[in-house]
């Protein structure tokens, strides 16, 4: 029989269907052992079909495969197609038989389809088909000619490029991910492993595949993993938990761990996929936040305790409420301005120049105050102590000392002496100095500046009050000694 385009397609299909029916019969006969070869009387004379044992398995394979498979006549009439091909075009499989492949070609690719049909054997080409919704489906198609009943037909295999492309892209994404992405079989044995898994755990793909998830799971997380697997199995959906896994070197890594069931066609769980995201940094940030919260609490309470102490002790010295308020508020201000300075420098330390400038900021007296020293930086605690002491000295000087008269002068100098910080306060040309009759808070504060980490000589010299502070080397912040700073509103000397 010569099949040409002139022949009515309906007739042609009838003919081919009849032949397929014959083939079915033959197959049945063979399966039941009735025959091992069949002779069919065709238009070209007698045809002998020898049905090899592989035929039935092949059919099953074609039905199961994830690619489209179809046989078409030379003219493109679809004789047979599998489910996958029907799904590709989104049409019922039984309707496709008898239709022409060319009619599904997307505009612009008809010629390529015809060429494919004419060539018979084609190693593969990209064509575009239209599905029932009118959407274009890009497919890669290969063709092999075979002869059925004397007719040459084409066996085509189509690969959905959109799926293929998607898979490729997914593969790239998985491989590029810094997360560990891997699959497990139903016994939790690792089957695939990406680069992220290697980075996260130290196990290469070769070392990981075949290993059990239980090997990565530290003992304290085993019960949790058992529960997780059980839950994922039962619910059939992905579940995420915060957990820990062991690296190759035995160290632990904090993770967000997502277990997703992989299901077979019948809905049974056949394995799992795992996405594990390293949250070490987040955990570290949480720890730091906790530390900072505690630290704020501690500092806040300490500050309140200091304010409480200043209030109580100021009250003991004061004879009137006004006296108390002046002393108390002055000290709180001294405390506050040192806090501002420390905060500006992220609580690393403050230069003596800044401390001196802040303590004497209220007393700019026509150049009678001289502030001069090096760029030494005091640690926060000692900066606060010195600031309060200088505040007390300045307050006393303004009340009774050199700063209480127009001609009085004050020198405030500091230097590093063999690593130790020496600060000198010298008043002169003030009124005659009289030592105080009782030790107030100011004196106690000055005498205790630097505590055990130095010493203080506080002298009521006849010419003016002198105070000599010494701080041990470790009261200072090293390496930051020459930072340029301003000295407030008072005159400043040149650093030595």
């Amino acid at each position, binding site marked *: 029989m010569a099949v040409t385009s002139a022949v009515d397609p309906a007739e042609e299909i009838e003919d081919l269907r009849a032949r397929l029916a014959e083939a079915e019969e033959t197959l049945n006969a063979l399966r039941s052992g009735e025959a091992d070869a069949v002779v069919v009387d065709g238009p070209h004379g007698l045809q002998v079909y020898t049905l090899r044992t592989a035929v039935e398995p092949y059919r099953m394979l074609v039905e199961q495969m994830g690619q489209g498979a179809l046989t078409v006549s030379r003219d493109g009439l679809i004789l047979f197609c599998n489910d996958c091909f029907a799904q590709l075009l989104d049409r019922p499989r039984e309707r496709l038989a008898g239709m022409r492949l060319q009619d599904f070609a997307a505009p612009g690719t008809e010629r390529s389809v015809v060429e494919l049909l004419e060539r018979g054997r084609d190693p593969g080409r990209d064509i575009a088909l239209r599905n029932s919704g009118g959407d274009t489906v890009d497919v890669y198609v290969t063709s092999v000619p075979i002869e059925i009943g004397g007719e040459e037909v084409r066996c085509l295999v189509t690969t959905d490029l959109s799926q293929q492309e998607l898979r490729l892209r997914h593969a790239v994404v998985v491989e590029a991910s810094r997360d560990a992405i891997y699959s497990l079989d139903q016994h939790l044995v690792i089957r695939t492993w990406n680069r992220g898994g290697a980075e996260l755990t130290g196990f290469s793909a070769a070392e990981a595949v075949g290993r059990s998830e239980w090997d990565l799971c530290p003992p304290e997380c085993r019960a949790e993993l058992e529960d997780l697997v059980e839950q994922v199995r039962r619910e059939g959906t992905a579940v995420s938990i915060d957990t820990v896994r062991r690296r190759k070197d035995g160290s632990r890594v904090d993770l967000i761990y997502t277990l997703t069931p992989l299901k077979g066609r019948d809905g049974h769980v056949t394995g799992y996929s795992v996405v594990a995201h390293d949250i070490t940094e987040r955990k570290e940030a949480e720890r730091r936040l906790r530390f900072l919260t505690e630290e704020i609490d*501690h500092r806040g309470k300490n500050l309140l305790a200091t304010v409480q102490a200043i209030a109580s002790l100021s009250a003991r010295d004061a004879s009137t409420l006004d006296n108390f308020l002046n002393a108390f508020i002055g000290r709180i201000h001294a405390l506050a301005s040192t806090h501002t300075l420390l905060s500006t420098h992220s609580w690393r330390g403050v230069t003596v120049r800044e401390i001196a400038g802040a303590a004497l900021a209220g007393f700019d007296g026509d150049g009678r105050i001289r502030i001069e020293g090096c760029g030494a930086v005091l640690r926060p605690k000692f900066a606060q102590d010195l600031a309060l002491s200088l505040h007390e000295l300045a307050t006393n000087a303004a009340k009774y000392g050199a700063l209480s008269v127009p001609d009085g002068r004050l020198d405030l100098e500091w230097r590093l002496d063999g690593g130790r910080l020496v600060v000198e306060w010298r008043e002169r040309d003030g009124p005659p100095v009289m030592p105080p009759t009782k030790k107030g808070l100011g004196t106690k504060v000055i005498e*205790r500046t630097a505590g*055990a980490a130095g010493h203080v000589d506080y002298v009521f010299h006849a010419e003016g009050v002198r105070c000599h502070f010494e701080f041990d080397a470790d009261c200072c912040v090293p390496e930051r000694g020459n930072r340029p700073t301003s000295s407030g509103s008072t005159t400043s000397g040149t650093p030595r």
Partner: protein
Amino acid sequence: MTDRPPRPLEGLRVLLAEDEFVIALLQEDMLRELGAEVVGTVGSVGAIVGAVEKGMPDVVLLDVNINGERVYGAAAALRARDVPFVFVSGYQELPDCPPDLCGVPQLRKPFRPGQLAAALGEALARGGRT
């Protein structure tokens, strides 16, 4: 300025370990008003044990964080000598506290004389072991 309690700590010898000297000054005043004798004030962790040996206090007030240094090592040394102590801190929960020191009486800053007296009394009642 506050209601002066009686002198419940009459004759008690107390050592202070506190680096903030203004706070230390107030604590000294409080202790004296409660009748106690302040045998010394130290501002560093390293000086505590020496000051205890020298001053022979009945009880020690230990700031938990002295110049950024934790005081737990010195606390263990005091316990070994059966010297009772009280932890003073601004922390709600003592940071990194060794489990065997968690039961030590605590004072949270800022505190009032009555709280100070109660904490010292508790420490003395327990003796050197807590």
